[in-house]
């Protein structure tokens, strides 16, 4: 399979993962290793930034596992820019998953603040991966200001509902010149495979792995699902059809003498 390249970095796994909701740091570490994930997002608010021996970070210290700090908890562009700067300092990476969801109930991303923050962060030299609604125009606007990828949602965060935004994701993928990572809502390996078959560059999965009865096994299942979907996409899926194609009476006149 082709590697995915974001901001010059090659990824051989197209399964990105999160670190929330696990029953222990040990279970999290085992599951993330089983997933083969090379990009792992961490909520800045959960990290003790002054503490080099932070329990979570300690369990994420693997050579192939890159950290992607996220700004979850901020409500405005201003707060997000400040949080990103703290993350850069504390975690020594200029990659940032930009999350601005001022609504704590459904965690819906704020498009206005996200665009403002993205523009500012790009100027400050960040590799910006913004979490957004599956809004094709917003995704183009983010590409225009220089984000390294876009991360449209499949369904509300943590809902496990799958690709409820399917039709809009198709447009986003068709139009995008930067990687499209489907984030949020992916509840099963088949959802992940579906996103990959569509041509998504990668998916991000957290809840479905973290709250599974066996997170390690579920992580392996997602790894397989993502790989199957990507391989199918690269192989070229046959077009599906509801009915057999017969010679059409509509054009029969062309064959008439």
């Amino acid at each position, binding site marked *: 399979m082709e590697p995915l390249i974001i901001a010059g970095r090659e990824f051989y796994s197209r399964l990105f993962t999160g670190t929330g*909701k696990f*029953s222990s740091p040990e279970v999290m570490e085992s599951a993330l290793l089983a997933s083969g994930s090379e990009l792992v997002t961490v909520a800045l*608010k*959960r990290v003790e930034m002054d503490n080099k021996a932070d329990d979570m970070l300690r369990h994420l210290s693997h050579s192939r596992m890159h950290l992607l700090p996220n700004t979850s*908890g901020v*409500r405005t562009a201003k707060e997000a820019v400040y949080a990103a700067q703290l993350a850069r300092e504390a975690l020594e990476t200029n990659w940032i998953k930009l999350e601005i969801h001022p609504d704590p109930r459904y965690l819906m991303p704020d498009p206005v603040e996200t665009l403002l923050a993205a523009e500012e962060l790009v100027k400050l030299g960040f590799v910006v991966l913004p979490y957004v609604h599956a809004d094709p125009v917003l995704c183009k606007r983010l590409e225009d200001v220089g984000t390294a990828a876009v991360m449209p949602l499949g369904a509300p965060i943590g809902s496990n509902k799958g690709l409820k935004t399917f039709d809009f994701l198709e447009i986003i993928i068709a139009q995008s010149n930067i990687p499209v990572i489907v984030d949020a809502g992916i509840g099963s390996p088949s959802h992940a495979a579906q996103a990959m078959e569509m041509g998504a560059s990668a998916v991000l999965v957290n809840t479905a792995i973290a709250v599974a009865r066996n997170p390690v096994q579920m992580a392996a299942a997602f790894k397989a699902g993502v790989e199957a979907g990507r391989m199918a996409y690269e192989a070229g899926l046959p077009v599906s059809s509801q009915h057999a194609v017969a010679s059409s009476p509509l054009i029969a006149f062309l064959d008439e003498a």
Partner: protein
Amino acid sequence: MFKSIFDQYEWNEVKAGIYAKTARDVEQALHNQRRSLEDFAALISPAAAPYLAEMAAMSQALTRQRFGNTMQLYIPMYLSNECQNICTYCGFSLDNKIRRKTLSPAEMLLETAAIKEMGFEHVLLVTGEANQLVSTDYFKKTLQLLRPHFANISMEVQPMDEQDYRELAELGLHAVLVYQETYHQDDYKKHHPKGRKSNFDYRLETPDRLGRAGIHKMGLGVLIGLEDWRTDSFFTALHLAYLEKKYWQTKYSISFPRLRPFSGGLTPKVVMNDRELVQLICAYRLFNQEVELSISTREEEKFRNNIVHLGITAMSAASKTNPGGYVVDQQSLEQFEISDDRSAAAIADMLKKQGFEPVWKDWDPAFSGEIKKVVG
């Protein structure tokens, strides 16, 4: 304002409605994907009692999906037991002849050191209501002093004006807990005969003021034991539903304090048993998947060990309910007797054994307001 909605409901009618719910209403409520206030009423009604096992299983699944296998830990820090209110159920009541104590800044730092030593990053500051001595100004200074030491600071103090809340939020105050105690107006007056707290409407509209001030989180609840808990809980849910739609950028949490004995105190009018408290917690979760549900050390060890699976998302541990209780003045009078006196480490250990990650830090001062984090 919530008052205009509250006034459309009549206590006795609400109560009669809850007690009239049938098994069929409960089954319909369990079946619904999105549950209404009427469904909540069915789930807290006596008719739902036979369905408790089913409610518990659903509550557990909904909670796990939203909050994962984690439990937020916090600890109260009592700053003062001065109070100008008379509240029939509270140890700090003006007419209760106790030695009064208000922590000085130096004492707060001593308490803070002891709390941090236990591992806590989320602290809840608690006081009585003494508007001269423990004023908005006192709270401002306290926040400035404590903010560098904690990831997350909440307050449970007297209700304030919108502007006060706005200023405190800017200084890093994350959440405010303000319990209505009871939504029964006449009973409210009986239990709060004197002091500023006797103003029912001012307290009722406090969450509106908090919402307008843009506070990150607010906590609601009633004191269980004062009045019929089912009716009071219906009003709490009504309040929550109103607030969530109006102040959509605020997070909400619910607590279920059961009246605890204190020296010279009131015997509860209504006693809620453990089975009923489980029913209430599960009903809240089925009504609202996202709301935080919090349990304090008022509850006993065995109950707390089991309730962590059924919808609760935050718990206090190792609490002292007297100002200076951790190191400064361990003998000062407590607000109420706690029931679970295990250490923070013991609670964390219990959680781990049950498959939960204890969460000590889930916020950062950098996210609250403009003040930069003080390093070192």
